[in-house]
């Protein structure tokens, strides 16, 4: 029979753990709200940027700009977005599983987040840079990362730049996505506008019907000032920087959501455990009382 003191000690420790997970759940919940807002706030901008790129498409020769030209892919650079800290369920595991499927010899990695960096180091992948960011990164803080990748691409060290990150679908679902960023394929810009049924919380009501409208509106004349080349030189890198920034915000929203859900599950489990242990404790206590009573009565009967 289990010792009542041991059970009491276990109940106490499980209760302590559940307090910690409860606190982490609350912290993650408030961070999640902020991170989700940040991720949603950038969408109007990103949509307009995409629309501009789409309308540029017809006015620009594809091979005329190094960021647009498709090259034979010998080396691919993958920006791997993971969280810095653990305790966020299967979030990082899912992303890293996808990362482990990539060809080791032709894939170079840039890690953003400590979990990804340690995975790459552990499995001996080719990691050429490793960045860490604060919880709510600003555009200018993510720019060195995208600038680094851009330089790798322009120098010819890599022929394609992808980003692998946990895409935020909703609070319960985050899915790893491997997306090509460079060379910029403008056709894909249409598809990158979040589809209306992707997530209820991230939907943007304002310009939902605009896409179909754009298809029909023909833009005859289109001026570039000061020149096509200088506008392209500014907007193409900019759209890449912004895309990376937006994905990083998405990763943050995913991370905090996953952490909140994981910590909620942990708190619930701890509560169940405490319930079971309390039952067991009471049983043990009753059993010991019964035994004692039995011993007393038997002793009395023997004396009498």
């Amino acid at each position, binding site marked *: 029979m289990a010792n009542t003191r041991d059970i009491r000690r276990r109940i106490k420790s499980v209760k302590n753990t559940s307090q910690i997970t409860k606190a982490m759940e609350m912290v993650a919940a408030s961070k999640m709200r902020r991170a989700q807002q940040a991720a949603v*706030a950038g969408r109007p*901008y990103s949509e307009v*940027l995409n629309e501009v790129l789409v309308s540029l498409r017809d006015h620009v020769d594809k091979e005329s700009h190094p960021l647009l030209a498709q090259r034979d892919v010998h080396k691919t650079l993958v920006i791997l977005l993971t969280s810095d800290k653990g305790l966020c369920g299967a979030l990082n595991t899912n992303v890293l599983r996808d990362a482990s499927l990539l060809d080791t010899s032709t894939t170079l990695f840039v890690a953003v987040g400590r979990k990804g960096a340690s995975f790459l180091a552990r499995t001996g992948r080719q990691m050429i840079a490793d960045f860490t960011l604060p919880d709510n990164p600003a*555009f200018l803080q993510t720019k060195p990362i995208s600038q680094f990748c851009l330089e790798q691409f322009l120098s010819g060290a890599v022929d394609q730049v992808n980003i692998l990150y946990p895409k935020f679908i909703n609070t319960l679902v985050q899915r790893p996505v491997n997306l090509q960023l460079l060379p910029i394929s403008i056709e894909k810009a249409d598809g990158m506008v979040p589809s209306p049924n992707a997530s209820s919380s991230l939907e943007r009501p304002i310009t939902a019907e605009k896409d179909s409208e754009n298809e029909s509106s023909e*833009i005859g004349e289109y*001026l*570039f000032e000061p020149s096509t080349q200088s506008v392209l030189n*500014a*907007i193409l890198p900019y759209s890449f920087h912004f895309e990376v920034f937006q994905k990083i915000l998405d990763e943050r929203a995913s991370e905090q959501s996953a952490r909140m859900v994981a910590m909620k599950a942990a708190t619930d489990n701890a509560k169940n455990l405490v319930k079971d242990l309390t039952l067991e404790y009471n049983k043990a206590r009753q059993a010991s009382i019964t035994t004692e009573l039995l011993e007393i009565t038997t002793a009395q009967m023997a004396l009498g």
Partner: protein
Amino acid sequence: MPTLHLEIVTPEALAYQAEVEGVIVPGVDGELGILPQHVGLMTQIVPGELRIQQGGKELRMAVGEGFLEVRPDRVSIMTEMAIDEADIDEHAAEKAVALAEKELKDQTLSHEEVALVQSSLLHSLAKLRVKRRHHH
């Protein structure tokens, strides 16, 4: 009176959206006025003052670097910053300018920090320009 649909977006939010009579933006080659029926245009804008004409009134905003796209159905301005004149805190902007200038002079910053400070300096200067012009 003909109007055009103006949309100003920043990475943080949709800053402004309305039917307006005209807009004057700080372009790379100087100020640029856009009226309804303007020909399709794609250009860069620099930190400075943006003026919106709506209902006979003029609305001023401080904007950062970005792009302007004019198309038949609307005018889009993408910029890193867009702040309504009324929301500009002159003292805070002055302080930010002083601090940024000092930091740049001290030269203790790393490369990326310099970029960050420089861009915030330009933003603060643009805010001040908008605020002060109105007072005189």
